[in-house]
């Protein structure tokens, strides 16, 4: 870690202050990816943070212009690699709207099930790594043990654990495995007591609450002004979830609640709230999966897949509720087999901007707490 000292900066009142610039470099065990934070300190308090990104840029949007529509799907997987199903769903919904095709109901239900399982897996990573940042090493392993079961479910369905290429334009690549429903029900039964265990071990622990409550409070109007969505916005008290407020797919058929931050351990919108909203969301996802499994219709999943995907010229913006926020795809098609432009609105990119506002006036040790609670993934930020 390097530091430079800008000595003798005269501020307006003529008093000499010494500001120090601390660099939390691209390689650091606690930034979730390759992120460089330039922290300006005055004593122990932070005055400014500038994030530097771009270390993981892999030119997704340029690649998408050279690929055909089905070939873009493996690329979309790799943006937010912890929640790949949602990346695919977002893109596929957009293209299906451009093509004006309707998918069978069974396909919609399976997409919802996969999406919610993926949400649980992504939140497990976020919570586990947040625990490690705070210093509790054990919940990380418990979270990953549960995540292994979800990844096994994905593996028997489509063959891959992390980057699926499962949701195709007009349908899915494989139908559900015959064992899938049984294994998922077993998983749900095993997972409910594990959430309670995680709460007892980490969420309600006094030391954890002392570390995270009242740290990094995000006021509501700041959140809306920056465009923050997802659990970060819900923790500040606003009930906004795309699954209820702008429903896509078959979400309107299920009965679930949206957890909203209430400031149980401190003020509304602090880090503990952001953490706890994610824990509650996992429970709600379990409800959705159960209902979807109970009402899963039969059907043919490949009946609506078009032979040649050549949407008419047009533009569309489709959005889904990622575990990190609102993931948006703006697709411009010019009538050929390659899209003209695919622009992605990544939720972590927007959430990273609030780091500066949240960290002002806090101690250096709180930077990691706040960064972990925002839950960013660098693949999404650098737009691959």
């Amino acid at each position: 870690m390097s530091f430079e000292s800008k000595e003798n900066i005269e501020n307006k009142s003529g008093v000499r202050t010494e500001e120090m610039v601390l660099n939390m470099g691209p390689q650091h065990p606690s930034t979730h990816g390759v992120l460089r934070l330039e922290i300006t300190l005055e004593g122990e308090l932070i005055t400014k943070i500038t994030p530097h990104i771009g270390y993981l840029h892999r030119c997704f949007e340029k690649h998408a212009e050279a690929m055909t529509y089905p070939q873009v799907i493996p690329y979309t997987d790799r943006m937010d690699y912890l929640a790949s199903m949602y990346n695919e769903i977002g893109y596929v919904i957009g293209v299906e709207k451009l093509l004006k095709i309707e998918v069978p109901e069974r396909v919609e239900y399976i997409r919802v099930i996969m999406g919610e399982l993926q949400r649980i897996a992504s939140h497990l990573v976020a919570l586990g790594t947040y625990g490690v940042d705070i210093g509790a090493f054990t919940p990380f392993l418990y979270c990953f043990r549960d995540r292994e079961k979800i990844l096994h479910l994905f593996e028997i369905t489509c063959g891959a654990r992390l980057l699926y290429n499962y949701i195709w334009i007009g349908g899915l690549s494989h139908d559900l495995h015959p064992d899938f429903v049984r294994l998922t029900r077993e998983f749900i039964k095993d997972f409910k007591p594990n959430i309670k265990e995680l709460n007892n071990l980490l969420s309600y622990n006094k030391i954890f609450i002392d570390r995270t409550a009242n740290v990094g409070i995000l006021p509501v109007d700041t959140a809306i002004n920056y465009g923050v969505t997802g659990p970060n916005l819900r923790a500040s008290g606003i009930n906004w979830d795309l699954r209820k407020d702008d429903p896509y797919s078959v979400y309107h058929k299920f009965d679930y609640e949206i957890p909203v931050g209430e400031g149980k351990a401190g003020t509304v919108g602090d880090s503990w709230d952001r953490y706890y909203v994610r824990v509650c969301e996992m429970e709600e996802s379990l409800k959705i999966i159960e209902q979807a499994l109970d009402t899963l219709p039969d059907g043919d999943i490949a009946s609506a897949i078009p032979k040649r995907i050549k949407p008419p010229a047009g533009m569309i913006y489709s959005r889904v509720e990622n575990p990190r926020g609102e993931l948006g795809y703006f697709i411009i098609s010019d009538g050929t087999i390659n899209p003209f432009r695919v622009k992605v609105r990544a939720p972590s990119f927007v959430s990273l901007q609030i780091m500066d506002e949240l960290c002002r006036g806090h101690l250096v040790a709180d930077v990691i707490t706040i960064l972990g609670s925002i839950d960013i993934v660098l693949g999404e930020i650098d737009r691959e």
Partner: protein
Amino acid sequence: MKEYFSNIFNALSTVWTGMKITFKHLFIPSVTIQYPEVRLQLPERERNRLYVNMDDCIGCDQCARACPVNCITIETVKSIPGDDLGKTSNGKKKALWVTRFDIDFAKCCYCQLCVFPCPTECIYMTDVYEFSEFDRDKLIYEFSTLTKEEKREKLERLDRHYNEREADKLGRM
């Protein structure tokens, strides 16, 4: 004052709850396995290294076109009439000599997009995942079954065939 004591009590009780959980986990058998002595059984739809069955390949180039990262390179030579290349397993007659079928596994992203367009299902994904090499060039797998001399011979025969046809045409005119 009351908050002081409630803080202490809260701290001690939550710490004790946490300790009970980790103590319980001491006696749960471990969930990890001792790889490489014990290996997990992979499911049947598992996507790992590709395999091409060259007896069935008709050289149609669909898989190379479907690949998003262009890791498959196919070169074919037309066969002259009267050549017998054999049949594929579902009875079709092959018409192209496949002289080059390279898959570069350093580029392959294991997305499975090449498996679906194949009309004879000769390219498919196996469950082999331990194929690391020290040298990146060794990851280019060459599936073509013709030797170098055979390839050259096929090209020459095709050239000769075309030349004869041109000569015929000129002769007739």
